[in-house]
Every structure is written in C-alpha cells, then in structure tokens.
C-alpha cells in the first residue's frame, strides 16, 4: 500500500472582508470558498482536480502549498502541514503554471536550471546527472542554450516542466499546463507528465479545463463545485457511468424510416445517416440497436461515449451528487 501524499480532512476556508455601505460605514462579509473538503491522494497517483471558475480549487491548492492558511480542518502534504512548514515543503513539491513562467526570458533554459540547482541546494554532480536525464527525456538538447524568448510555446512549456522536476519533487502541481499549446505540443507534454508519473512514481495534482489533459494525464478525477467535492472517481468510470448516455452514429444503405423512441434524441439527420444520443437508463442500447436495424439496411454503425467535456459540463451544472 502506497503512502498518503496529500490528505485533507474537513478543510475549510472562509474569506472575510468588508465593503463600504455608506459614508464611513463598512459592512463585514464572509464568503465560504472551501466547505469541509476531505480527500486522500496516495503517492504515485495522478489526480485531476477540476471545477468551474470560482469553485474553490485555487483556494484549495493555495492551502496545500502553504500560501493560504485555512479557517478550519487539517491538511498534510508528504506528512507536512503546508502552512506551518512551507519552507521545508518547497523542497519536495514542484509546480508548473501554464500562464506564469519560472524561466528567465532573456536567458537560455540551461541558465535557469543552474539557478534552480542553487536555489534547491542540489549538489553539482547530482544536478548535472538530473539535468542530462531531463534534457534527454524532454528533448531539450536543441534549444538548451537558446534564450527562452526565442522558443516556441511548446518548447518553453517542456522546459518549464523539466525545470520543475529538477529538484526531484515528490508531488507536482500542474495548473493549466497546456493552455495555448497546439495539438501536438499538448499531446507531447501530456505524455511526458504521464510517463514521469508512471516511471518515477511522481504524484501529480492537475487542474485544467481541458478534458484532454484530464483524460490523458490522470486516472482519478475530483470535481469541486461551490467549495465542496461533488465527484471523486476514476476518469474512465466518470465517462462511462456518470451521464449514462451513448452516442450512436449509423450510416444506412437506403434512406431510413423515422425513429421515435423514449430516451433517444436525434442529434443530426442526413438522407443516409443518423446521429443519436441514447440515455441508456431509459432506453437500453440493445433495444435502440434493434430499432435502428428496422429503419433501413445498415452500412456502418459506431457507439461512443459522449465527449468528456459534455460529462464535465453536466457535472458542473448539478448540485452535489454521488462520490
């Protein structure tokens, strides 16, 4: 059984502030940002921590990294209480923020690596070994000595992630790491993070609005909304079971008859094709298939889960549900 990397128990955060309500008058207000969250993440797990804007995920992450002090409850990261031991914890965690660079813009990535080695007190030989490993794995060789301002966003983000791994962190926080990247660069970065998670046992804590990131990087997804956890499950299970709907695409040899069935919604219809959304809780997939086969000779058929974005949007739109 792996050790617990991150543990939260009834973690709460209330922001209190005052707003002017008149001349020399102010009113005290409170906003509950995180409402008694409890969860455990084991070492080596890769978790997507998602939620709509304002759901409380940034607040939770800031508490987990020791920047924000909670109003109640407890949390530990690698056995340390983040807000009391932020300095020590800094040596054991890494962070990549898609919109904020830690690389020096006018200097090559290698110079930032050397600076980080000093900041994290990495001995010279160990640094060289680690840097060479990262350079090889993240394919940084070609631009290691090129000023960061001249790199493409994809190259820069690869260097960012490599920089955040230089000091052997046990937990990596990734916040929108693929934002702005093209399809290939995005895929490359996801593969690298996934590989590092599997091969090095790195615990990954990902926040992203990109369903592809969630699906490719994480096995477990935690959805937070209104300061509470509304879903904590495997990504595959969420996709399969949460909505309980399937997308059925059928191509016919001749124009099909019309179809009306409870639990079946026609998304698109052309002369020889139909695209259906099937609510499998109302209309079992076998009965829909049988009905489709009666419409006309079938030339091709495919059954797919709905896109993850749809599943996520559906969850965001709901109040607290199963965990």
């Amino acid at each position: 059984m792996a050790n617990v990397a991150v543990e939260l128990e009834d973690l709460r955060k209330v922001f209190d502030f005052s707003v002017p309500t008149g001349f020399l008058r102010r009113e005290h207000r409170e906003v509950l940002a995180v409402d008694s969250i409890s969860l455990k993440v084991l070492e080596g797990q890769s978790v997507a921590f998602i939620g709509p804007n304002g759901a409380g995920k940034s607040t939770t992450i800031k508490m987990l990294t020791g920047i924000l002090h909670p109003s109640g409850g407890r949390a530990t990261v690698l056995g340390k209480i983040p807000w009391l031991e932020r300095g020590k914890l800094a040596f054991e965690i890494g962070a990549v923020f898609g919109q904020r660079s830690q690389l020096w813009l006018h200097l090559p990535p290698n110079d930032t690596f050397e600076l980080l080695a000093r900041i994290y007190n990495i001995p010279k030989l160990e640094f060289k070994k680690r840097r060479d490993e990262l350079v090889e794995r993240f394919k940084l060789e070609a631009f290691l000595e090129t000023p960061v301002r001249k790199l493409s966003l994809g190259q820069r983000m690869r260097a960012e992630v490599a920089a955040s791994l230089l000091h052997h962190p046990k937990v990596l926080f990734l916040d929108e790491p693929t934002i702005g990247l093209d399809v290939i660069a995005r895929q490359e970065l996801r593969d690298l993070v996934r590989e590092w998670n599997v091969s090095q046992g790195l615990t990954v804590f990902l926040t992203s609005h990109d369903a592809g990131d969630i699906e490719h990087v994480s096995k477990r997804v935690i959805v937070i909304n209104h300061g509470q956890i509304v879903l904590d499950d495997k990504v595959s299970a969420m996709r399969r079971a949460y909505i309980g709907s399937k997308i059925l695409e059928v191509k016919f040899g001749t124009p099909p008859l019309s179809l009306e069935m409870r639990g079946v919604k026609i998304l698109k219809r052309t002369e020889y094709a139909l695209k259906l959304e099937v609510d499998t809780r109302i209309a079992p997939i076998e009965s829909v298939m049988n009905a489709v086969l009666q419409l006309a000779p079938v030339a091709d058929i495919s059954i797919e889960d709905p896109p993850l974005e749809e599943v996520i949007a559906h969850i965001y739109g709901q109040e607290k549900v199963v965990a």
Partner: protein
Amino acid sequence: MIEVRKYSFLGLTAIRSSFAYLGEQLFGLVFLGVILFIFLQLWRATFAGAGAVKLGDLSLAQMIWYLAIAEGVVMSRPRISSEVDQDLRSGSLSVQLLRPLEYPLAKLASSFGERLVLFGLIAGTGCLLAFIFVGTIPFSLEGLGLFLLVLPVALLLDTIGFLMVGLSAFWFEDTTGLTLIYSRMTMILGGMLVPLELFPDFARPIVEWLPFSSVVYVPARLFVHPSFELFGGVIVRQGLSLLILSLIVFFVYRAGLKRIHSNGG
C-alpha cells in the same frame, strides 16, 4: 552561507540577463546626453553670474562629473516597485512563494544585479560625455576606493526604498503615484540637480540625514571630491538608513504576508 550564495547567484543571473537588453537603454543614453548638455549650459551661466571658480567647493568640471554619477544612480532606478506591484496584483507572488526563497531578498538580489549593469552603462556614458564636455578632473586611488565602498550601499539602499514602495501594493490599488513621489524625492532631496552644499543652511542638516542623500549625493560627491572626513559621517548615515529601511521592509512584508495567508492576496 548557502543562503548568501543562493542570492548572490540570483544576482549574477540577473546581471547576465541584463546584458541581453542593453540595447533598449539607448534612448535613455540619448536623454542623458541632452540633460548633461543642458546642465552644462546652466552651470556655466551660474558660475559666470556668480563670478565664482567654485560653487559648494566644486569647480564647473567637477559639477558636470558630479551630475554624470548622480544621473547614473537615478537613471539606473530599478523597476522593482512596479514588478512587486505586478507580482501582488497578478497573483505571481503566490507562485514565487512556492520556492525556498525569501521573496523580498530574491527581488532585491535580482534587482540589484540588474542595476549594477545599468549603472555601469549609464554612469560610464555619463563620464565619457563629461570628459568630452569639460575634460578630466583630478582623481586619486583613495578617492576611487571610497567611491567604490559607498556606491554598492547607495544602490542597495535605493533598491530597498523602491522595494518598500512596491510592497505598499498590499494595501493600495496602484503604487505608480507613490513610486513617482519617491523617485522625485530621491532626485531633489538626494542632491541630483544641486549638491547638498548649495542647499539652504536650514535644510542641509535635514536632507543629510534623510536616506536620499546617502543614495545620490554621497557617491557622486566622493567620486569628484574625495574626503575622508565626509566618508566617516557617510558610513554612519548609510548604515543607519540601511537598518531603518530594512526593518520597514521586513515589517511591511510580514504584515502583507499575513494578508496573503488569510485572504490570498
């Protein structure tokens, strides 16, 4: 010791980084040339009008060299206050707090490194222009030694001052106004335009004890007119200013950090 090496390396990295955009300072150097030329004419007229060979114990040539160094200090003003302001406003501070570094020290180290390069470029150009305009002035090794001792403290003091202004963003919506006021106070009360000897008698003791004179007047004056007597008093004043400004930054940052810890910035 490891900590000192860490921040020193950060400063060195900033120095390396600064060389990459030195070209951007070209406009500033043109401006410096114009300023020095205008002041050359003004001081020429003033010396002629007063019928004096020396004003405040400085000759016309020394006055122009004084201005070159003083301009070097003022024009190499770091962007630290606006950077800190931005870090606080954009939430970048939270990201920087994730590293095993003290934020104010890290900011100071990188700004100081950047500033050394800028000062070298601006003051170097200023000295060249002063040489072209008025020729050389008497220099001594002792004088240069005194100058090199007070200069780093002067630049550090100024950088800490602007860091302090930047940290006010914990409470103020916009620190641009404060930065402007602080920089103008450095220019006027620091003795950039007029050396302290030419200040009215009642004002001189006050401005001497303000930190601004330790930033601008002291290095410029020791560069053009070295004096061990002045140096003795300067060390005490610089040390006191350094202590007081550092304490203010320490407490302001601590109070600001409390706000970040409770309300996230």
